[in-house]
């Protein structure tokens, strides 16, 4: 039982890392990536191949997965962001990128195609996932409270005005994308060493959509919002393994409900904090007393 619960938490944290990464890109620059599963997959395969075939140290493999994703982030981000694609065209470009990576994984020798990689060492324990999550959240928070975070927000708010504030649109968008790709890659590496078996069909556009939906539902411009939404949207249903059709229906309904009743997302432009939670709790208590 205990191992079952720790498994759920570990699994959730892995997705939280990927979603926080995406939140830094989509939530802060306002551009949508519909191919983020590709970064997750690149991290998973890079790290998995290194430990599986080459016996590389787990932490080194994890870092390499993040680095490889970041590198690919530069390769895909450079031409698309330089061209200043309109945001809808950019989203379509990322969709194509996501599919291209999956097809590549299915056809490469080293990835063993559709058969995938079985028997990757199970190194991702709860403390490992928790430790990485804390680091990623800390770094993400540092980003938000820096000139780069402010520049990203300015670009999202009004990119013409942002440029007139001396902000280089291309640079800000590319840095956010690379940061986000690295987080995705690290999450993928953790995933590979948690499930021990990866194959290309695990990284479809369905995963990308889920990540994007978590960011939107959690709230643009927030880190903790998407983190919470990820647990609700991805991790819990995945682990509960309700009949998969109903899972999708419930998922869709929940998403629609959030967009109707809370279009800014659970925590749009705000963060979860202890002070906020306390305030919320005392409000609840006060209301309860009022009723009693």
């Amino acid at each position, binding site marked *: 039982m205990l191992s079952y619960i720790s498994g759920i938490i570990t699994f959730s944290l892995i997705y939280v890392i990927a979603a926080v990464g995406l939140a830094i890109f989509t939530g802060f620059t306002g551009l949508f990536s519909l191919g983020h599963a590709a970064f997750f997959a690149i991290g998973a395969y890079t790290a998995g191949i290194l430990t599986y075939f080459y016996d590389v140290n787990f932490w080194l493999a994890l870092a390499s997965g993040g680095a490889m994703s970041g590198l690919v982030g530069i390769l895909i981000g450079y031409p698309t962001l330089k061209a200043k694609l309109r945001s809808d065209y950019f989203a379509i470009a990322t969709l194509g990128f996501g599919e291209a990576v999956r097809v590549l994984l299915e056809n490469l020798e080293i990835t063993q195609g559709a058969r995938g990689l079985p028997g990757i060492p199970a190194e991702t324990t709860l403390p490992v996932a928790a430790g990485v999550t804390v680091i990623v959240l800390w*770094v993400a928070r540092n980003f938000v409270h820096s000139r780069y975070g402010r520049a990203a927000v300015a670009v999202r708010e009004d990119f013409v005005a*942002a440029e*007139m504030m001396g902000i280089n649109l291309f640079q800000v968008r590319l840095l956010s994308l690379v940061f986000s790709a690295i987080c995705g890659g690290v999450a993928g590496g953790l995933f590979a060493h948690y499930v021990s078996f990866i194959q290309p069909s695990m990284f479809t556009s369905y995963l990308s959509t889920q990540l994007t939906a978590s960011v939107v539902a959690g709230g643009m411009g927030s880190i903790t919002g998407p983190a919470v939404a990820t647990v609700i949207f991805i991790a819990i249903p995945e682990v509960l393994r309700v009949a998969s059709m109903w899972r999708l229906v419930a998922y869709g309904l929940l998403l629609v409900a959030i967009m109707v009743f809370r279009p800014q997302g659970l925590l749009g432009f705000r963060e979860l904090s202890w002070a906020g939670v306390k305030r919320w709790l005392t409000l609840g208590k006060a209301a309860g007393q009022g009723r009693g």
Partner: protein
Amino acid sequence: MDILRLEAVTKRFGGIVACKDISFGIPEGRIMGLIGPNGAGKTTIFNLITGVYSLTAGRIYFRGADITRLRPDELVALGIARTFQNIRLFRNLTVLDNVRIAVDRNLPYSFGAALARLPSVLSKERAVYRQATEYLAALGLSGRAGDRADSLPYGLQRKLEIARALALKPKLLLLDEPAAGMNPEESAELARLIRRIHGEFGLTTLLIEHHMDVVMELCEQIYVLNFGVKLAEGDAETVQGNPDVLRAYLGEGYKRAGN
């Protein structure tokens, strides 16, 4: 020496010629007015100078260097800042953050340092905060630092745009109708403010304004546009006495009265 020079600048939007063959220079340290009826092409000229639009023909020089093809952020780095006629603040952010985003340019630190939040970042952040509050104080906005930008009344939003532009430490400041929507009293106060910051920050200022009292009060030199072409140029008296200018403005006044 002219800090800014336009040479035969032309901008076409499809069939519309928004400005045609515009040439003028602004001597360093001057306040120059750019006036003309609605749709004359004034804002278009600002957009060409600041790299928002690309020129159809002509050249623009800043301190002797050709800046015709530069991006807005590169022009800001050279020392050109502006405000927008249709206010473009970061509306969901606080007044303080609007200015902080501009101040950030003056106190850079690397991406890696930012992610690790090194001590050097913390001290720079404190300096950013300090400078931002100074610019707010200079424009009389200190009391509103924590408010959302779009909660300010229009007059203060225009002042916040000026604060943000000043925080970029420009040499050339372009103001697009800063007194729009103000009553005579408010616009007189704004004129005094513009004169003060012009001196205090060592600026050269190019001003688009429909309030003639503001223009006549501030501008040593005026360039008049009509339908995208030059109508007149000179000091306030010359321009005011020019029959073409009178006709252009009377025509406009007549149209307005007719509405």
